[in-house]
């Protein structure tokens, strides 16, 4: 499904990804764990098409389609969804209108039916229940004045609406209290399906107790240095990241 090969990327002249290799099969949940500055957010932004990141070499192919050749909106239409670590506040743009524009753009590109505001509202209010979001929030400006937890839940709601083939969740657990974390994790679990793949990026093992991954990868120094099962996350939780890159060298 997703094939990342030897991906190298930089921002502002600094190389952050140093040859990432990763294969995510359909229906799999891949955790990517890594310390601060290991390239986690860069990887998610590069996959989603943020124009500030420069891809120097390598490829990322989603079901045969060269993602890196597409602008951000076309990646979204191809089924890529980035759950932002820091969702952007967009004053004056109403959440429901923004989301309908995205939903309809994606549906139009697939030749599917576009929804009028009434039809869309019905769908949106149904999905809002997944993350326990008040209907009144849907009429507010995108993320404007939202709490940290509300922003994260809003990202999950957007994911639920857009039904991506590949969701890249960039630290969906950061800054959340226990209740919000559970809501976000429940939301992710409800959206798991054999057709959809998830890359779950996190610093901590905590969320992986709630969203149990199929594969755990460790990203350090801009490369995947270890890959394993759930036990790898537990190992990092007890022993930390230090020395993880040496394990690779020892294996290699």
């Amino acid at each position, binding site marked *: 499904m997703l094939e990342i090969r030897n991906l190298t990327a930089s921002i502002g002249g600094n190389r952050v990804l140093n040859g990432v290799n990763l294969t995510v099969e359909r229906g799999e949940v891949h955790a990517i764990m890594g310390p601060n500055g290991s390239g986690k957010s860069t990887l998610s932004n590069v996959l989603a098409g943020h124009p500030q990141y420069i891809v120097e070499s390598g490829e990322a192919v989603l079901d045969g389609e060269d993602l890196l050749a597409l*602008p951000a909106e076309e990646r979204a239409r191809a089924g890529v969804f980035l759950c932002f670590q820091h969702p*952007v506040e*967009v004053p004056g*743009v109403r959440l429901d209108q923004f989301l309908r*524009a995205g939903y309809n753009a994606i549906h139009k590109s697939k030749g599917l039916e576009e929804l009028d505001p009434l039809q869309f509202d019905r769908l949106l209010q149904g999905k809002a229940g997944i993350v326990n979001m008040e209907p009144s929030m849907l009429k507010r400006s995108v993320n404007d004045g939202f709490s940290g937890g509300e922003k994260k839940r809003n990202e999950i709601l957007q994911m639920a609406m857009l039904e991506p083939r590949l969701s890249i969740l960039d630290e969906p657990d950061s800054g959340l209290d226990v209740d919000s974390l559970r809501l976000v994790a429940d939301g992710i679990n409800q959206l798991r399906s054999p057709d959809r793949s998830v890359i779950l990026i996190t610093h901590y093992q905590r969320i992986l107790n709630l969203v149990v991954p199929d594969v755990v990868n460790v990203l350090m120094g801009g490369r995947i240095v270890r890959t394993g099962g759930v036990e790898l996350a537990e190992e990092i939780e007890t022993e930390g990241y230090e020395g993880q890159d040496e394990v690779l060298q020892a294996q290699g």
Partner: protein
Amino acid sequence: MTQKTATRERRYVEAWNDAIASAPDVSAELRALRESAIAKFEEVGFPTARRGNEAWKYTDVAPIASADFDDLVPPLPVRVATEALDQHIMGGSVWNRMVFVDGHWVPSLTSLPSLPPQVTVTSLARAMSLHPHLVRDLGHYQSYDESGFTALNTAFLRDGAVLIVPHDTVVEEPIHFIYLSSSEGRSSVTQPRTLVSMGRNSKAAVIESYGALTDSASLTNAVSEFVLDEGAHLDAWRLQQHSAEAYHVGSAQVRLGRNSRFTSGAFDFGGAIARHTLSVALEGEGSECTLYGLYMTNGGQHVDNQVLVEHVAPHTTSEQIYKGVLNGKSRGVFHGSITVQQAAQKTNAKQTDRNLLLSDEAEVDTKPALWIYADDVRCGHGAACGKLDDSALFYLQSRGIDEASAKRMLVHGFANEVLDHVGLTPLRVHLEQLITATLRSSERHA
């Protein structure tokens, strides 16, 4: 005045002598008003962007002053192209509407379906000849010595709109004054005038809109006067949607009585040069004004808003929120001044001007001025200028929205801080359509 500038003004004086001076249908009072105004115009002439003339420093009206307009006193057109009128109509058959073409009231295009019987809406020409007492306020509030343009309007005063709302009267539906120029293939000068008098505890909403039935490099030189008695509420929206070749100069004088409340919105989309001065005097204790503005320019347009708020009485409140969206090589000017007189203790005054620059060549001059002579006041101002937020753009695109649509959404979002206060749905929808049309037209030219 120098010899060179004097020749620019002489054409107007000659046209005045030919067509206005001898007009038979006016009262001695109006005749005197016109005569003193033309004398004033001859004396001060058009303003120049010379050093020391702070009010006109950023706006050069030489192209207007030296323009060779075809009709300085345009006649009522024989036929009005009503098909082009539709884009200026709002509020269907519910709103009250008066239409003026080339400065003349057109009764056949006027409809007043929802007016309480005690309210007077009439044309200025009619009021001047039939009910001179109704227009005794004319010119009393808008002093014409500040700029040659106001004197020019007063000298050529022939017609306009008069609204008089008696005390304790609520006008539920808005009253829309539409001023259009029509001269096909010719350029003209029109001098619209609006006079609104709100009685004690009365309430109404008016819209003045300015535009053209056919595009031409015409000049509209408008003057408006609003007087609010104790406890009156008035919403006054001004929409300027001329073509990008036209010239528009306007001024409005507002006087607020005790506990009255005035809300205005100034929406400028058109004009090669557009300049508007809004002066509000908070004369009655407890009076309030909220002044919104949105200007959107493109190409080589130049739009200048001067907002002059004067707190005269204690416990008065004012707020100015102006926003600009500038594209192409256009230029925006915002000058907002707040004066708090010594007696105006407990004044609360705020002013913000925010601008969004959509091109590298667009430019904004924003200049706040606070003159505070009282000691117990709260005054604040802020100005900002920036480009579209790249991270917001990426956020929208990451949800499948193409770049051009995402940019349009962000501009609408920026404008919404002002538009959210436009409670009249047909006006709001109209403004949103104008924003979209302006953005689409600049995308085509990009």
